[in-house]
C-alpha cells in the first residue's frame, strides 16, 4: 500500500472517531434542546458527556492537522470552496463548546443556565447540519470522474443532496447521544429517564433510516457518478450500514442498550466509510486525489510516525479517562 493511502486511512480513522464521539456530543446538544424544561433529562445528558467532550473535540484538530500536513493542496481547495459552511460550522462549534464549558462551571443562576443550554443546543444542531451538508456537497463534487479542470472545484454544499446529508448527520448525532445517555441512566436504574431517551433513540433512529434512503435516492437523481460508486465499490458497506441501522432500532425496541449503542456507532462508521470508498482516491473534486495532493515522501513519513506516536500515547490515556469515569455519578461534582 502506498504511503498516501496509509495516511488517507489514518485520516479516515481520525475523522471516524470525531464523527462518532463528537457526533454524540452534538447529539447531546440536540437532545438538550428537545428536553425542554425537564431538568433531570438535562442532568443525565450533562453527566454522560461531562468529562469527555473536550477530548472528543481534539479528533477534529488532529484530522485537520493531518489533512493540511499530508494533503496540503486538498486542504487549500476545501478551505476555498467550503469557506461559507465551514465558517458557519466553526462559529457553531466554538459557541457550543463555550456555552457547555460555562454551563458546567459552578454558581450559575437558573435563568443564565437555561440560556446557555439553549445556545449549546441550537449551535450543536447547526454544527452537525453544516458539517453534514459540507460532506454531502463534497461527495457530490468528488464522485464525478470528469469535471472542471480547476484545482478548486465548485462544491454544491447547498444542493439537495447536501441538505439531505446535513439532516441525516443531525439525526444520526441525536441517535448516538440517545444511545449513550440511555445506557448510562439505565445503569443507574433511572427507569423513567431511560424510557424517555430510549424513545428519542427510536425516533432519531427511524429518521436516520429514512434519511439514508432519501440520500441514496437523491444521489441517484442528482449525482449519478457518485451513485454508481455507491452501488459499486461501496455497495457492501452501504448494505452493511443499512442492516446495522435496522439492528440499532431493533435493539432499542428490545431494550438491549449496549447493543443499540454499539450498532449506532457502527452505523455512523459505515456511513462515513461508504462515503470514503465511494470517492476514493479523490479528495476534492475530479482533480485533487490523495496522490496529486500529497506532500513529499519525507513529510508523509514524518506524519505517519507522529500519528503512530499519537496512537501509542493517546489510546492508553483515553482508556484511563473512560475507566475513571466509567461509573457515572449523577450528583453534581462541584
Amino acid at each position: 500500500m502506498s504511503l498516501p493511502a496509509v495516511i488517507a486511512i489514518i485520516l479516515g480513522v481520525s475523522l471516524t472517531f470525531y464523527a462518532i464521539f463528537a457526533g454524540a456530543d452534538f447529539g447531546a446538544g440536540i437532545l438538550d434542546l428537545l428536553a425542554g424544561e425537564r431538568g433531570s433529562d438535562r442532568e443525565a445528558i450533562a453527566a454522560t458527556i461531562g468529562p469527555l467532550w473536550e477530548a472528543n473535540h481534539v479528533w477534529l484538530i488532529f484530522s485537520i492537522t493531518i489533512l493540511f500536513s499530508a494533503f496540503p493542496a486538498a486542504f487549500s481547495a476545501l478551505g476555498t470552496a467550503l469557506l461559507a459552511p465551514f465558517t458557519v460550522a466553526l462559529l457553531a462549534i466554538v459557541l457550543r463548546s463555550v456555552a457547555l464549558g460555562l454551563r458546567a462551571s459552578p454558581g450559575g443562576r437558573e435563568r443564565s443556565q437555561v440560556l446557555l443550554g439553549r445556545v449549546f443546543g441550537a449551535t450543536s444542531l447547526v454544527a452537525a447540519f453544516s458539517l453534514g451538508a459540507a460532506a454531502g456537497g463534497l461527495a457530490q463534487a468528488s464522485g464525478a470522474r470528469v469535471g472542471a479542470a480547476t484545482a478548486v472545484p465548485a462544491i454544491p454544499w447547498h444542493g439537495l443532496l447536501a441538505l439531505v446529508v446535513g439532516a441525516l448527520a443531525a439525526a444520526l448525532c441525536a441517535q448516538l447521544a440517545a444511545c449513550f445517555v440511555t445506557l448510562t441512566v439505565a445503569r443507574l436504574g433511572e427507569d423513567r429517564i431511560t424510557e424517555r431517551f430510549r424513545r428519542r433513540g427510536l425516533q432519531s433512529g427511524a429518521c436516520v433510516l429514512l434519511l439514508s434512503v432519501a440520500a441514496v435516492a437523491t444521489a441517484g437523481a442528482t449525482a449519478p457518478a457518485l451513485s454508481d460508486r455507491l452501488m459499486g465499490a461501496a455497495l457492501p458497506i452501504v448494505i452493511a450500514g443499512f442492516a446495522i441501522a435496522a439492528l440499532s432500532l431493533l435493539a432499542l425496541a428490545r431494550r438491549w442498550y449496549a447493543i443499540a449503542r454499539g450498532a449506532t456507532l457502527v452505523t455512523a462508521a459505515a456511513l462515513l466509510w461508504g462515503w470514503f470508498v465511494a470517492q476514493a482516491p479523490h479528495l476534492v473534486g475530479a482533480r485533487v486525489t490523495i496522490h496529486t495532493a500529497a506532500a513529499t515522501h519525507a513529510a508523509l513519513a514524518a506524519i505517519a510516525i507522529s500519528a503512530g506516536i499519537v496512537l501509542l500515547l493517546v489510546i492508553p490515556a483515553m482508556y484511563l479517562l473512560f475507566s475513571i469515569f466509567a461509573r457515572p455519578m449523577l450528583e453534581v461534582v462541584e
Partner: protein
Amino acid sequence: MSQFQLAAISHLTAGRSQIGTSLSFHLFFAVLGVGLPLMMLVAEGMHLRTGDPVWRALARRWSKVFAVLFAVGAASGTIISFELGLLFPRFMAYAGGIIGLPFSLEGAAFFLEAIFVGIYLYGWNRLSPRAHWLSGIPVAVSAVASAFFIVTANAWMNVPRGFQIVHGRVTHVNPLAAMFNPAWATETSHMVFGAYLATAFGIASVYAVGMLRGRRDPYHRKAISLALATAAILAPLQVGAGDLLGRTVASHQPATLAAIEGVTRTEPGAGLNIGGFPLPGHHGDVLNVKVPHLLSLLAFDRPGATVRGLDSFPKADRTPLAPYVRLAFIGMVGIGTGLVALSLWYWLRRRRGRSGPEDRPTLMAVAAAGPAAFLANELGWLVSELGRQPWTVYGVFRTSSGITTAPGLGATFTAFTLLYIGLSVLTVWSVRRIASRPLEGLPSQALAAA
C-alpha cells in the same frame, strides 16, 4: 483596474485582520493554558506537603477558572487551525507539507492535555489526593509541549529551513530540519517563559486587587507570594532568552532587526536606540538616547559590526509597518524591564519582614503588573508577525500570495470579531461568577486566624 486593486487590498487586509484578531485573542488563553497548570500543581503540591487547606482552596479555585479558560482556548485554537485553510489556503498548500510535523505533534500533545484535563478537573472527588496531583503533571507538561511545537512552526516562518523550491514546487523536505530551524530554541523558550511570567503576574495582580480592597488574609498572601516567587525565578531567564532571540533575528532577519531597533540607515558600529519613539515627521529621534556601538555588540558580538538600515532593503521587501513594530518592541522591552525591577523590589523588601510589602504603592504596582505582562506577550507577537511582513515565510513566501481567492472575507471578519467580543464578555462574566463564590473546604475561621 484601480477599483480591482482597491478590492484586492481590502480583501487581504480583511483576511490579515481576521487572523490577527484570532491570534491575539487566542494568545491570552494560550498563555494562561500554559501557565495556570503549573501554578495549580505547585499550590496543590504545597497542600500535599504542608496540609494547609489554604493551598488546596487556591488550587481548586484556579482549576475552576482553568476549566473555563481551557474551553474557550480550545475553541479559539480550533478557529485558528481552520482559518489557516479558510483565509490563507495558498500559504497552507505551500507550507503544510513542510511544517506538518510540529503541527501533528502538537495535535498529540493537545490530545493528552485534553484527556488529563478531563481527569484533573472532574477527578477531585474520585482520585486520591496524590493521584489527583499526579494527573495534573501531564496537563502541565503537554501544555508546554503544545506551545513548543506551535512556536517551532512560527520559528520556521521566521527562519525557513528544510526544503527546496524546484520549478515552483516544494521538494526535498526534511521535516526535522524545518522544525529545528535556527530560531527554534530561542523563540520557544522566550514564549514559554513569557507565558509563565504573564500567568504569575496575572495571579499576583488579581490577589493584589483583593488586598487593596481590604482582604488581607493568608489566602491572598499565599497566592501573591507563590506568584511572585515564580516570577522572580523566571524574569531574569526571560531577559536572557530575549537577548538570544534578538541575536537570532539579527543573524537571519536583517530587515526585521532594522525595523525592531529603529535603524534607518546602514551603519558600522551601530548604537542602540533607547526610546526613539517613531512619531510621524520625526526620524526616530523623539526622546532617544543612543548608546554608541551597543547594538552592534548585542546583535553581532562586535562593537564595530555593521547593522543594515531599513533604507538598504527594497521597498517591497521591508515591513510597511516599521513604526508599529518599533513601538511594540519598545513596549515589550519596557514592560519586561519594569517587571524585573518589580520582582527584585518585592523580594528585597520581603527579606526584612516575614511577609512581603503590603503598602498601597507596592500593591498597586503588582496589580498593574498582570495586565502589563499580558500586554508584553501580545506586543512580542506583534513584533514577530508585523516585523516579518511583507513575508509570511521570511524571504520566501509573501503574505499577499497566500490569501484565499474566495470572496466574502469582509463578512467573515465581521462575524468573527463579533464572536470574539461575545466570548470575551462571556469569559469575564463566567470567571467573575466563579470568583464571587465562597471558598470550599476553607472555614472562615481559618482565614480569620491570621
